[in-house]
């Protein structure tokens, strides 16, 4: 039995995570690419941490950090009356933290690769920084931005350890497709696990292949690159 509820939940989680990460990740990547601050490397290291930490460890500390006994959890409870652990919002927060490097790193490298002379020329012509970003940096860095978005989406679709630790496995709320597959395998229902895995594999491959194909075509037709 394919767990459609879990598949749909994962898609929603991945889409929301990607949107939030683009909103948060682009300014952060811009700062990392262009800031002259010397201690920038410290921020870079923090951003990359989720690549290194075991997801279950990260998940366990996120559980403690958003639980009702933590300042974050207490504040959230005062503001909304709800609780972050075992909720979609909690999962979303965890996914954003977990996928942060997958958005920020490709985008920051793409920003850094934009020719500085173009930026200076734009500024000298009296164009504001925001407009320069919109008209010069962003179009040139679009492949990097697309890569960051796709990687975040894909990474969140396949996210497992963090969800296992903070989710609580509630159907329709926190039981994502990877958890559902794990449950099926644990219950020795290998046929169902294989079926859901194959579906996930097929969808992921199709999405990734289509995106890369589109990107190629798109960029060879794009006049500026």
């Amino acid at each position, binding site marked *: 039995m394919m767990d459609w509820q879990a598949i749909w939940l994962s898609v929603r989680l991945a889409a929301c995570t990607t949107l939030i990460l683009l909103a948060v990740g682009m300014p952060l990547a811009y700062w990392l690419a262009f800031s002259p601050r010397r201690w920038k490397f410290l921020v870079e290291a923090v951003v990359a941490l989720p690549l290194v930490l075991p997801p279950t460890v990260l998940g366990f500390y996120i*559980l403690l950090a958003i639980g009702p006994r933590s300042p974050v959890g207490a504040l959230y409870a005062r503001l909304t009356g709800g*609780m972050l*652990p*075992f909720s979609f919002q909690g999962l979303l927060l965890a996914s954003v933290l977990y996928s942060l490097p997958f958005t920020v790193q490709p985008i920051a490298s793409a920003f850094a690769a934009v020719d500085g002379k173009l930026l200076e020329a734009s500024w000298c012509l009296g164009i504001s920084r925001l407009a320069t970003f919109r008209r010069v940096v962003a179009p040139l860095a679009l492949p990097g931005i697309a890569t960051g978005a796709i990687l975040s989406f894909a990474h969140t679709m396949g996210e497992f350890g963090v969800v296992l630790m903070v989710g*609580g496995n509630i159907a329709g709320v926190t039981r994502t497709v990877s958890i559902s597959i794990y449950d099926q395998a*644990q219950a020795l229902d290998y046929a169902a696990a294989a079926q859901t895995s194959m579906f996930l594999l097929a969808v992921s491959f199709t999405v990734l292949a289509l995106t890369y194909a589109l990107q190629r075509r798109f960029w060879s037709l794009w006049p500026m690159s």
Partner: protein
Amino acid sequence: MEEVSLEFHRAHPDVELRASYGSSGNFYSQIHNGAPFDAFLSADVEYPRRLLREGIGAADSLFVYGVGRIVVWVPAASTLDPAAALRDGGIRHVAIANPQHAPYGRAAEAALRSLGLYGGVERKLVLGEDVAQAFAFVESGAADVGIVALSLALAPAARGKGRYWEIPLDAYPRIEQGGLLLKESADTRAFRAFLVSAAGRGILERYGFYMPENR
């Protein structure tokens, strides 16, 4: 298990016991695919029994070494009374192990149903991958109350951190803890004999298991 290992080593100094911990379902599939373990102890005798049926493990080496017990557990700082916590309307999350594949989760769900509490808490259930994770959910404060193994509540790491109420044994099907020798040798036979000996049973009883024939 630490103490079993220690005592066993004292009785058989030439044998060193090394334990790997994990869920029964995981080990079942690993052993099924040739994992090099000497013995398999599971919270549910069904897993080793199934392996044996499939021709894995030493014939006639299947044994039941204890009966698991479950408790309602609340953290020490909680104002809830463990015996009444599941009827409390103010609780938000109840942690149990996943009934789909964890023996203690199945027992917890069955107990909730037979005590007439399932309808009231069904929407509040959060599932740990195993009973230890369900325990971690409660201990961290993320869940208000949990149904866990008595052996966990009595484990040195958990002692003094919470209060518990034992769910009557007749409220859920017996959780028979079973073992199987995967490789038969003098050492593994000695280990099996130790677990069912007076010394082994003494340790298991102290850590919250009933002995098979007592109940």
